[in-house]
Each structure stands twice: as structure tokens, then as C-alpha cells.
């Protein structure tokens, strides 16, 4: 699944690192590192993390399941 975090909004509350530790990790006290393409088995955890973010800074792909690549036709 695809994820992006708006780190200009993120304030390091670390809720995501608590709820989905395989996808979101704190680097030092405040900096967040994350996996932009976590495995689908983490889906529930990642969605919970996105919902819990106090800054609503986590965006999860809305096209999940009907993947976008079909749109891309290199020519």
C-alpha cells in the first residue's frame, strides 16, 4: 500500500510509530521516518495510524485495490 506523510505538518507526536511500528519509526526524539510502501499485512495498523495522527498528516492511497498503473502508458 502507498503512504506519504506531510512532514511539514508532522510535529512528532509519534502516535503512528506506536500504532504501526513496522511502518513508522521515530528517528531521534521528534523526526519521523516511514516506509512509503508498507506490506499489505500492515494495512489495518497503517490505517489506524493515519486516523490517529493529531495533525492528519498521513495520506494513504485512495485507489487501493484498483491500482493506478493502468493509467500509465509510456509512449
Amino acid at each position, binding site marked *: 500500500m*502507498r*503512504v*506519504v506523510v*506531510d*512532514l*511539514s*505538518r*508532522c*510535529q*512528532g507526536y509519534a502516535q503512528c510509530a506506536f500504532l504501526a511500528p513496522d511502518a513508522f519509526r521515530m*528517528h*531521534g*526524539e*521528534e*523526526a*519521523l*521516518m*516511514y*516506509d*512509503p*510502501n508498507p506490506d499489505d499485512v500492515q494495512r489495518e495498523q497503517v490505517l489506524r495510524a493515519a486516523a490517529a495522527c493529531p495533525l492528519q498528516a498521513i*495520506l*494513504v*492511497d*485512495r*485507489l487501493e485495490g484498483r491500482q*493506478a*498503473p493502468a*493509467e*500509465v*502508458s*509510456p*509512449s
Partner: protein
Amino acid sequence: MTSAENLRAFKRDGRIVVVGASLAGLRAAETLRDEGFTGSLTMIGDELGEPYDRPPLSKQVLTGWVPADGTKLPRRREIDAEWLLGVPAGGLDLKTNQVRLADGREIPFDRVLIATGVRARPWFVESEAALDGVFVVRTREHAEGLRRALAAGPRRVLVIGAGFTGSEIASVCRERDIPVTVAELAAAPLVGALGAMIGEVAADMQRAHGVDLKCGVKVTRLEGDAQGRFRRAHFDDGTTIDADVAVVALGGIRNTEWLRDSGLAAGVWGIACDTGCRALTLDGLITDDIFVAGDVARCPNPVYEYRLISLEHWANAVEQAEVAAHNMVSAQADRWPHLSLPVFWSIQFGVNIKSVGVPTFADEVVVTQGSVPDHRFVAAYGYRGRVTAAVSFDNAKWLDHYRQLIETAAPFPPPCPTPDQPADMKPVPVDFPGPALLAQGATVVVTGHDPGERRVTAAQQHHR
């Protein structure tokens, strides 16, 4: 037809072309569809594959946690676009409203969004840049190449340029326990963006993490062995250093060359536009159908005396793209100005560095809260007695407070909002590197005498 009928017809079956299929281009396309544009949408991009996120390339990808092809951007919605990928745009014709691709194809449009961004500034000697082991980091292919080189366990990595990207890469090297030398022309890391005081803090951080930091030096030559592998770098003070990997982190070049004959105000600084993201011509006339967003846009900001500012910031790309897209499908009275303050972040040596405002628009800087030795503080920047920017080290929660101070032109120095007032809260000169280090010279020439004849032409620009 009335203009309202025209707009309805355009939203229904007009043709929009987006040049640049990265973050700004993608978010603009999504916004166009959100706003009810049902006409044809064409995405032009020089890289193959779907739009991907770049910030992880100098961090999670280089540490080996995330594969370089694992940063494709999540989609907010379907955009039902035709994608023309792998070929850069070669020209723009304002008379016929066509984008010309480098392979000669011509793509007609009613409105176009230019979001061609920035590319990495390459090492200035081509044969040296081509050595095995010499890298820049901008695309996922670059990042994948450097990730492999770091995984191979180099004896030493040389990072040329201690801006944000160079510092982040040095940080990754130390995290991976790889010896690293950072060479910077200025007196300290990050000084070009944040000034001398923060530069000193950044230098302390690098040295505390075991970086061999060399400031005030210039790399003059990259030397390879008989197999064409990078082996040694030469400095202007006559010294050399042996390393297996060199990372050239000397900033970016805005992708505007393809607009050279277009008549737009495009050059090394970016493409000038108004706050509605409409491009200006060289003569300073506003265009109706040409819009600009992202790293390549150069937009006036009223907070900073309406100076034209170009930003290579993630959030700016998203917000400016949304404003541009909204304005592309809106009537004059419904258009939005892009007025948000710049926000920037960098993660290095375990510290979260963030800024709000424009730190280079300042004459003084003061630490307003926290502790510099602990690398946890906020510094406020002031220009002629008002707050114009703030930088936080592991103190991001306070930046919104400073954003309000900037937006309300609050007096500088501002009072400390918390009990952790620093012992010595005294403003000091901000001290940015002088124009000799930053200036790139004149870019235009004015010709003609009569009002109907006077025109501005672009001077030929050469990148240093």
C-alpha cells in the same frame, strides 16, 4: 458567449496539458478533476513510471530500509489522464498554444500547467562526473545507484556541498558507520539557507557524529583510476582525500531551458508568475492560459515585500499546485492567491530541523527558546524589527506560533513563549554568505523606444 458559458464549456471539454509528472503535476491533476474538469488531461513527464516522492531518496532509501522504487505517491483520486512519459518537453508556443516534445510531437492545449521542477546540478567536469562512484541524488535511479555503493562498504564517502541534501546523506553514512568527509565552500553547513549561527550548530552536530567536516574549501578535481573508478579528490588548498564514493550535492538547476524561446519570464531563477500562478511573459505581462507550480515557479510573496521567491519545498509544491489547478478552472472573481508561508523540514543526525517563513529575508537572528548545546531550540529571524522566519531543532510544535508572528508582522525580537527562556537571548547579525557566493548575474535586456516596441529579451544564461 458570456465568459461564464465559456468557462462551463472549457470545464466540460477543454484541453489541459500538465508538463511535469511529479508531485506538483500529480496533485494539480487531482485538483482539476476534484473541481469538475471533465475535459482531456495530458500528463507529460521526462521520467518513466508513475509519480514518486523524492524526500525519502536521501534518507530511508539510502539507509537500505526502503527500496528506491518503493516511494510511488499515493493517489487522492483517479485522474483519467493520458500519460506521455519518458520524453521531456522541448518547447512551448504561446501563439498556437502547443507544447512541443523533444521527439517533435506537438501537443495542443487550451490551458497548460508548467511543473517541470528542478534537476540535480552535476559535477562541473563531465569526464569526472562520469567516473564510477560519483553520484548526484535527485531521481530514484540516482538513489538506487548510491544505495548500492553504500551497501558495498566504501572505505570513505566524500560529500561535496553541505546544504540540506548533502548533510542528510552524510548523516546516513554515519548511521551506516561509513567514514564520511563533507566539503563545503562556505564557513559552515546550511549557512546559505539558515545563516552563520545555525551553521555553527549544524557543524557541531556533524562533528559530534564523526563527520570529517571541511569548510571554506573547494573541491577542484575528482581523480579516477585506470578502470575509471573514482579514487581521490583534490582541494584548492593543495590537500587530497582518498574515497570510493563522491556525492555531488550542489543544489539544483531549474528545468526552464525548454522555455528559452517561449517568451515567458523563465530563467535560472525559475518562471515568474503572479500569486494566482499565472506565468509572466518576459515583458512582465500576465498570461491567461499558462500556469506554473512547484519548484520551478517564482512567485511574489506580499509578506516579503512582494519579492519573487522560488522554493524547493515539498509543501509548497502541493499547495501551489492546488491553487494553480483551482485557478485554471475558475472565473476571475473566484480565483485564489497562493499566499502560504514557506515551510521546510530536514532530518539529519537524529534531529528534526524545520523552518517557517524565509530565513534569508532577515538581518538578525535570536534563539528564543530551548537550548542550543542540546540541539533543541527555536531561533527567530527578524528584518528591520519584525519577525520574518523561524527555525526549530526538535521543537516543531512551536512553529505554528511563529507562523502567526510572521503573518501579523510581530515585532522582533519576539518574547519567549515558554518558561525555557535561553540564558543569553540576544539578537546577532544573521550573516549569510555574500552575493559573490550566490549571485548569478543579469538575465534580461530591455530593447526598443516606443511603448509599442519596448520588449525584454533574455540574456543567454550559463550555469556555473
